[in-house]
């Protein structure tokens, strides 16, 4: 594999409003780009590029089997300066995934470093098959 990647930092994709719900804040929202892989323990690992977000502004929720990642990002301004050229927009982040595997909720870990969110979703131990005794009479 060469070092020279075709796309180092693909342009952020802006969220299109989902048909069902709309966000209350009138702000641009971007879809963070992610890498997802399964490690040798069958744990799911997610890395999400969210430049501008930090550990305080990110929130992760797991409801049923839907994992939601959100982050708010403050606008950037410099006093006395005007934005004269822009290649990227500043806004919040939002993305949700449906997990097909059962996850051990107690052991989820997440950390934020240099604008990258990493989440470890450990696979839940398979439930032991329980035999149900049937009583006579």
């Amino acid at each position, binding site marked *: 594999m060469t070092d020279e990647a075709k796309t180092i930092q693909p342009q952020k994709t802006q969220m299109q409003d989902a048909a069902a719900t709309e966000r209350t804040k009138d702000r641009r929202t971007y879809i963070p780009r992610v890498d997802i892989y399964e490690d040798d323990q069958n744990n799911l690992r997610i890395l999400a590029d969210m430049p501008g977000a930090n550990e305080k502004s990110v929130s992760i929720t797991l409801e049923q089997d839907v994992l939601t990642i959100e982050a708010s990002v403050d606008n950037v301004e410099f006093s006395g300066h005007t934005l004269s050229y822009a*290649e990227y927009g500043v806004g919040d982040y939002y993305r949700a995934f449906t997990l097909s595997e059962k996850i051990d909720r107690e052991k989820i870990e997440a950390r934020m470093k240099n604008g990258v969110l990493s989440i470890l979703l450990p696979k839940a131990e398979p439930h032991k098959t329980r035999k149900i005794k049937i009583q006579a009479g």
Partner: protein
Amino acid sequence: MARIDFGLWDPRSEMERFFSGFRRATSESSPPMNIFTSEEGVVITSEMSGIDPEKIELSVVNDKLTIEGIKPVIELKEGESWHRRERGYGKFHRKVRLPFSVEGDKVEATYENGILKVSLPRAEADKPRKISVKMAE
């Protein structure tokens, strides 16, 4: 009433004209940049999450700024498998010509939450000077 153009130097339009030809010179493989300008200097911000700040190299020569760096690639071990791979990786290199010469020793750069911020003060010698007109004798 018709607007009369006295042909005065307008830093705003000058800047716009300068940056209008800028987009074509950039390749998709570089981290996106936003440029803030004032008469005192330029502030450049760039989204580049997940980079070791020690691996970012900046150099300034007169009115040229070069940013180089590397985004580490995630190599999977045996028994691991990709689900999604959207984040970019690899080397990047970006050259920017600024609208004026820069005070090289006063350039400051910080890297926080995946965003690089470079402030480049305009060189004293390059600033516009006011020339007083003396009355002819």
